[in-house]
């Protein structure tokens, strides 16, 4: 997982124009030509201020989503039923933390430290995927997350892996590779319940009903109201529109869900055979923005867990830094 399709942005976009004006037009033209030719931009290369800012925001949010996304599933590691599921879930959540690590490293190449990013996460300044502000109530929720939310994230990440910033693309290539295994284990656990006892099927259907709206929210608001500029598409920061990614997800996964005899809580959901596009009821976008603001069912709980980890780990990080300094001063000066 877990980079949501949607890059959260605070209101007020006037800064963008001011900063844009500071970019050297000749360098900007050369930069845009490189991107148009399909070249990758590397950390030492010239880049517009706004490109750097947007990328930091994108990669940072993606990284936060990985480590926060580890929490709803992580709480089920101790309850996973049987050795196979227990081991698979630990391995999977461990991978997500590893993805967070890779992504923080990629974002650091743009000049923001991991500590600064974590501080912004804890203060609420920097966001993460909204989908993790919902509770994982039963084991079936874990299978829905492992199958469908991972699947949704893959749609987004495969698109982003073709973007213009080299370090982010390389991190995503590895992430997508591991995610394909996550999807397999999620699918396997999902099918096990879907084809299991009546109680297991009911548990799964209930989880699916609860998660469907957050999943529809996952790719962000419809294109007609999404504020993201064409510039981000031209710079290959954003690689696909929210609606296109949502459609791609529905096309690939709704039939798989229906084939298993499960239903989805949207009576309007169907594929329009003429346009080839999926039609659906609009999810509650007011709720989506409320959750972004911090008013979702689990926002506080998720951040409190991270704060606990940061506070309890602070002496260790300080100790390691002191040790590094000590080692450095012990080295002879050549």
């Amino acid at each position, binding site marked *: 997982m877990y980079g949501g399709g949607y890059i959260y942005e605070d209101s007020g976009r006037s800064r963008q124009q001011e900063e844009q004006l500071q970019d050297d037009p000749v360098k900007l033209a050369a930069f845009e030509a490189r991107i148009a030719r399909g070249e990758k931009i590397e950390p030492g290369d010239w880049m517009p201020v706004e490109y750097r800012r947007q990328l930091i925001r994108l990669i940072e949010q993606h990284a936060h989503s990985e480590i926060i996304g580890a*929490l709803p599933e992580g709480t089920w590691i*101790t309850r996973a039923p049987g050795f196979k599921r227990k081991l698979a879930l*630990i391995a999977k959540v*461990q991978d997500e*933390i590893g993805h967070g690590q890779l992504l923080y490293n990629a974002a650091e190449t743009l000049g923001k430290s991991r500590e600064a990013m974590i501080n912004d996460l804890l203060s609420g300044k920097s966001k993460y995927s909204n989908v993790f502000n919902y509770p994982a109530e039963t084991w079936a929720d874990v299978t829905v997350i492992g199958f469908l939310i991972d699947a949704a994230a893959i749609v987004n990440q495969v698109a982003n892996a073709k973007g213009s910033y080299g370090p982010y693309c390389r991190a995503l290539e590895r992430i997508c590779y591991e995610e394909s295994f996550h999807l397999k284990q999620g699918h396997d656990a999902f099918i096990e319940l879907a084809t299991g006892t009546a*109680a297991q099927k009911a548990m799964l259907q209930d989880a699916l009903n609860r998660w469907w709206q957050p999943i529809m929210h996952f790719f962000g608001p419809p294109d007609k109201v999404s504020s993201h500029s064409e510039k981000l598409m031209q710079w290959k920061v954003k690689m696909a529109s929210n609606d296109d990614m949502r459609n791609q997800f529905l096309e690939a996964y709704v039939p798989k869900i229906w084939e298993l005899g499960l239903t989805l809580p949207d009576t309007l959901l169907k594929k329009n055979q003429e346009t080839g596009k999926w039609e659906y009821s609009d999810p509650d976008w007011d709720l989506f923005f409320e959750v972004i603001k911090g008013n979702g069912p689990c926002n506080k709980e998720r951040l409190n867990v991270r704060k606990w*980890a940061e506070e309890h*780990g602070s002496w260790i990080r300080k100790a390691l830094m002191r040790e590094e300094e000590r080692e450095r001063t012990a080295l002879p000066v050549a």
Partner: protein
Amino acid sequence: MQIQQALPELLIKIADDELIIGHRNSEWTGLGPVMEEDIAFSSMAQDKIGHAWAIYRILQEHFEGQDPDQFAFMRDAAAYKCCHLVEMPIGAYEFSLMRHFLFDHAETARYQSFSQSSFTPLQQLAGKIKGELKYHTLHADAWILQLCKAGEESRQRMQGALDDCFQLAGGIFEPGKEEALLISENIYPGEQALYQQWLSTISPVIEKAGLIMPQMTAPVYGGRQGQHTQYLQQLLNEMGEVFRLDPEATW
């Protein structure tokens, strides 16, 4: 008692130790003090749980034991034979790190001895597990040394953790009822020999770290006889919560 009864006793206590410490280590997934440690504890958790699974399979195959999932997820605390050290909650990071250090050196001594065991399935398994344990002890030693050298606060925390863990760690080597038979059959050299081996491995690291080695005055026994702290049943209730919804179902 015949070897056919004595051997499962040995196997069950080792596997139970590994499952329970693996479960505890997995609780750090998502909560580690730095992401790298979070990942390390998850990784070791997988190894430990994997070892337990492998031993439960040996029990099933060679001693008419139960299906490993049923055996692990359905037993109550009184039927578990793990030592108290592994049952304790994860506590603060220094406790978990020190427990990992003391436990993994004990495991290393144990599996080194198993690599010469006359019981072939155990001897073969030891070959694989020893390779993994090398990294576990390397990790534990490096972190203990690094933190102990990083100033008084962290050295004191590690000393406190060592003092808290040490008698509990003594419980790893609680003598078994049928040890003499296992020793005479060359299954393994017995708990006292492993204890001595363990002491000789951890002592240099503890000394190098500048920690004071406690005396083993009151090792915490009872776990091997099914007497446990309250924490084990709580852990088992949580571990079996989903599985016990329908033990006949596949999950």
